[in-house]
């Protein structure tokens, strides 16, 4: 398969970037999207050019490092997968493919397609944890949790923090991510002691990082590789309003 690629090239954070076009030829349909970029990079290196920088790690769809907007959709045309799990058979030979980084003020481009998602880390550090004394491992089922609640917590915890929600949102809002991280504690007894403080701190940090605001358009739900539902945003809204109105600390 042959493709005409249009890739965002940007030297560093402070440089102006632009789209550069190049051709790749003889790609197997079973090549993954990232492998296709590896093949291109190998050629660029052999030709003495700079390879294209892009984030990747596990290539199994679980680490959340992929951050490619492919033809205008984060993680590309297939639903419920990350870019590393996308294969070239999802495209047509001869097709133009536009590859851009996540675009958000809170995700500055480091180089080419690689962005700095430290803003997500700072949101997690603000409250995305349960600070309990763990002690020895408790007996299994010593803390009873209803199956339905465990499922809700687990569905939210499936978020890998890739940032596709921000990339797809017309407002670059991070509310699906923060909602998922609030929700994963909300349904578990371990999350209860810091319930109010957590949501207040995480949302305040989210606002400080310069993300946009949710306008309930739900493109995030459509592109999320872990298919996180927007109910987590409603849960975060509810928790934040409740905590704001009733929190004991100032």
């Amino acid at each position, binding site marked *: 398969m042959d493709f005409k690629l249009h890739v965002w090239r940007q030297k560093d954070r402070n440089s102006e970037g632009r789209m550069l076009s190049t051709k790749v030829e003889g790609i197997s349909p079973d090549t993954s999207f990232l492998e296709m970029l590896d093949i291109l990079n190998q050629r660029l290196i052999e030709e003495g050019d700079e390879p294209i920088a892009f984030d990747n790690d596990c290539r199994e769809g679980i680490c959340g490092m992929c951050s490619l907007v492919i033809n205008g959709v984060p993680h590309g045309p297939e639903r419920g997968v990350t870019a590393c799990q996308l294969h070239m058979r999802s495209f047509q030979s001869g097709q133009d493919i536009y590859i851009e980084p996540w675009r958000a003020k809170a995700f500055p481009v480091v180089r080419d397609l690689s962005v700095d998602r430290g803003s997500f880390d700072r949101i997690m550090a603000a409250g995305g944890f349960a600070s309990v004394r763990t002690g020895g491992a408790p007996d299994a089922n010593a803390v009873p949790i209803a199956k339905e609640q465990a499922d809700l917590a687990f569905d939210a915890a499936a978020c890998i923090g890739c940032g596709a929600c921000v990339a797809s949102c017309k407002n670059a809002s991070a509310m699906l991510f923060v909602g998922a991280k609030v929700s994963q504690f909300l349904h578990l007894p371990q999350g209860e002691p810091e319930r109010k403080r957590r949501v207040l701190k995480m949302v305040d940090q989210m606002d400080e990082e310069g993300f946009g605001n*949710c306008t309930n358009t739900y493109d995030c739900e459509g592109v999320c590789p872990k298919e996180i539902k927007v109910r987590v945003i409603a849960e975060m809204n509810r928790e934040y309003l409740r905590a704001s109105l009733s929190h004991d600390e100032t």
Partner: protein
Amino acid sequence: MNWLFRLFRSSIGCKGIMALTGIALFGFVIAHLSGNLLIFGGPDAMNAYAVSLRELGPLLWVMRLGLLATVLVHIGAAMRLTRQNTDARPVPYVRRQNVASTAASRSMMMTGLTVAAYTVFHLAHLTWGFILHDFATAVDDQGRHDVYYMVVKGFQQWWMVFLYVVAMVILAVHLRHGISSFFQTLGFNHPRWNPILEKSGIGVATLIFLGYVSIPATVFFGLVGLDGGGS
């Protein structure tokens, strides 16, 4: 009061203000429609209703100022949120596709501003009497302001009907997203209710559209005339 400022300054608090003022304005849209439909009761019902509103006196002004304040807060919060939203993506995409969003949800600012602009025109027509002034000064046989005459004469003009219908389409599009957003923003989301809320957003918006448009449509096609029946 520190916590209150913090809440209003936050993204979710500001969204909550959008939701609460939005639902209040939705309440006005319903109340206004129920008053307007009195036109089908004939000139006497309409003009008597108008007099009863005027007779509220100071209370009418409390309601008017409250409504104006709600509109201004709704627009002000929208402006603040929208500015943050545009600032959040300084470099736009070369290619961008919408995956799951509706056109209604993406155009709330445009539909909202259009409804606001039409509202000013609407007030200039029927409240202040700047537009079609000659129809706005009539008095009925009981000496009351002849609102019925003003409305019927106004909607016998094709361009007035056209503007009205276009504005009501845009209002319906705005409400279609606004109604279901109200619940999500204030934290109500449940798999059993989501499809119902989504459909009721469309359904209620459609009903409101049909209710409002029934007035200029029946006047324009002569089903409602100056004598209270067909002209």
